[in-house]
């Protein structure tokens, strides 16, 4: 299969992830959108590593995974704290700060 297809797929996944972040209302789903964007990035990294024939891209993908894991820890902690207080994870309810 043509290798550029993978790059195109990465772009599509990234776009879906970005759209999810911008349109969805549940904080958890928004966060999943971010994770999808990061995984699309990983796909792009390994695809380009294949194109260039060097391993740097694959190593970069590992870094991104670790960072994504760390982000999950902090992000879920914050979202769960809010959920326990308000019984809702909708980003529309989080609107006390205005002006």
């Amino acid at each position, binding site marked *: 299969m043509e290798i550029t297809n993978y790059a195109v797929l990465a772009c599509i996944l990234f776009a879906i992830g970005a759209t999810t972040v911008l349109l969805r209302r549940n904080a958890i789903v928004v966060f999943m959108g971010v994770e999808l964007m990061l995984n699309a*990035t990983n796909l*792009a990294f390994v695809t380009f590593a294949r194109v260039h024939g060097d391993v740097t891209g694959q190593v970069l993908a590992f*870094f991104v995974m670790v960072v994504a894991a760390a982000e999950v820890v902090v992000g879920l902690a914050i979202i769960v704290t809010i959920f326990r207080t308000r019984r809702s994870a909708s980003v529309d309810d989080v609107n006390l700060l205005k002006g």
Partner: protein
Amino acid sequence: MIPDFTAPLIDWAALAPLLVVLGAGVVGVLVEAFVPDAVRRATQITLALAALAATVVLIVLRWGLIVGSDGAPGVSDVLVGGTVMVTPFALALQGTIVVLAFLGALVVADRTSSGQDAFAPTAAAVPGTSYEDLARRAGLQQTEVYPLLMFATGGMMLFVATDDLLMMFVALEVLSLPLYVLCATARRRRLLSQEAAAKYFLLGAFASALFIFGVALIYGFAGTVRLIGDEDKPGVIRRVLSGDAPLDGMTVLVVAGILLVLVGLLFKLGAVPFHAWTPDVYAGAPTPITGFMAACTKVAAVGALVKVLYTLVVGLPPEVGEQLRTVVIVVAILTMALGTVVGAVQTDIKRLLAYSSIAHAGFLLVAVAGINLESLRAVLFYMVAYGVATVGAFGVVTLVRERTVVPGRADGADGEDGVVLGEATHLSQWAGLGRRAPWLTAAFALFLLSMAGIPLTAGFVAKFGAFGAAVAGDLWWLAVVGVLASVVAVFFYVRVIVLMMFTPPAEEQLLAGAEARAQEAATGTGDEAEAAEASSGAEPAGGGVATETRTEVARTVVTVVGSRGPAAVAIAVCAVATLVLGVFPGPVLELAGEAIKFVP
């Protein structure tokens, strides 16, 4: 296929500043686990401040070595095989970050005369539950903030001193993740604080995902994530210049990549259209953290932005460079306009300072858009001037509080009774502050004047330098726009000063009180619980008087709590620095001049 691995040569001495700060963070986590309650807080504060002070010394030593060596062999700014690149410019930024972090940490450490710091007893407790009450009564303290501060500072230092886009991404996360957590730890108005953290986190994670995808595209184009690189491992720029980027010709890839990376950096900087989080997060986070975050993150973001932009604009084909410059100019104009115009109608002091920081991001971008050595010098000086004014201003905000009025003493204004509550952030509550606390008001006025860019303060020299840099880069019209924006900005700074100095204070801020009450009711803060606890201690009559107590609690006056030392020191240092940099800017400008000598 797989090349042999050769371990890079690591110059530990040169890395020492970074290692000390991050090491202090790690040790701080151990302190959390092993040091007994009674001395934990003191240990953490000592550790954090000592580490930051030691780092300043190490940076000064390193500075002497690098600037004094004049490019002699043996002293290289390329460390760990080029992953870390401590040029004099990066070193100057690191120094600024650490000094500001030190001042910020002093404000964080201050418990004020009310005996409480700005952090929740346990941030994990759900607001309004008995567990939270229990934690408060037991006098628990959230001392994890100090290691988190250290990690954030370490990330910022790495952020400005790397040649590797991947390392920049890792540093971005290392500096952001602790800040997300810190935002959620406020002692009062806890729902607002948690909300601020959630907004900051979701938008921040989105921005860093854009950043890393940009890096992926750049990697696809150039086959490397180094910006400059060296002879053996050429970076993006070297490959573009010599025409051996693997996908040479697909410029669209690299342009899209750079734009995405810029979005990530502009988000951290708080520039329009990526500014939406700034006012909410600044208002919701614990005030000492806001001060730290506003000052240090901005230095780090500008440092990284300058690094990426200047390397790429110089290296890429001229028409691409010109397009990137146009993007920066447009963002600068939008940022200045929005920051000043929206800032002028704010009624909350923390939001006002947030919009002011957005406007300052715009002024900084004016300097950055000049794209010449003069801009680098202007940016350095601007960061110092803006940083000290910001840390100082938020330090003052932490000391202006609400206090409950004790029944039967309606005049309460001069008495020492009543429970000190959260910060009095509504602007109307600041009326007549000059009579209650003349020195504090004077310091705050000084910071505001410096932000407005009035002569004889650091802000004037900084803005002069920034606009001068734009003119030097043939952007005189952008400098004119900048001057116009700062004239509008003067309006809202002076409005606050007039309010503090010349408007008589209302005896009881009924209006603001009512508003705050509505807010409290909506947010269910710890304030009421704390106040109720105190008053029930005074008259242990129990449930019968509960409603009565409630109505008394709602009446608050504005008070200025005394600092226990650290915050006062920080505010004083910031005020003195603002004045000295305004009157004798020479030495610092000279240092900044030396910092840009060896920029590649």
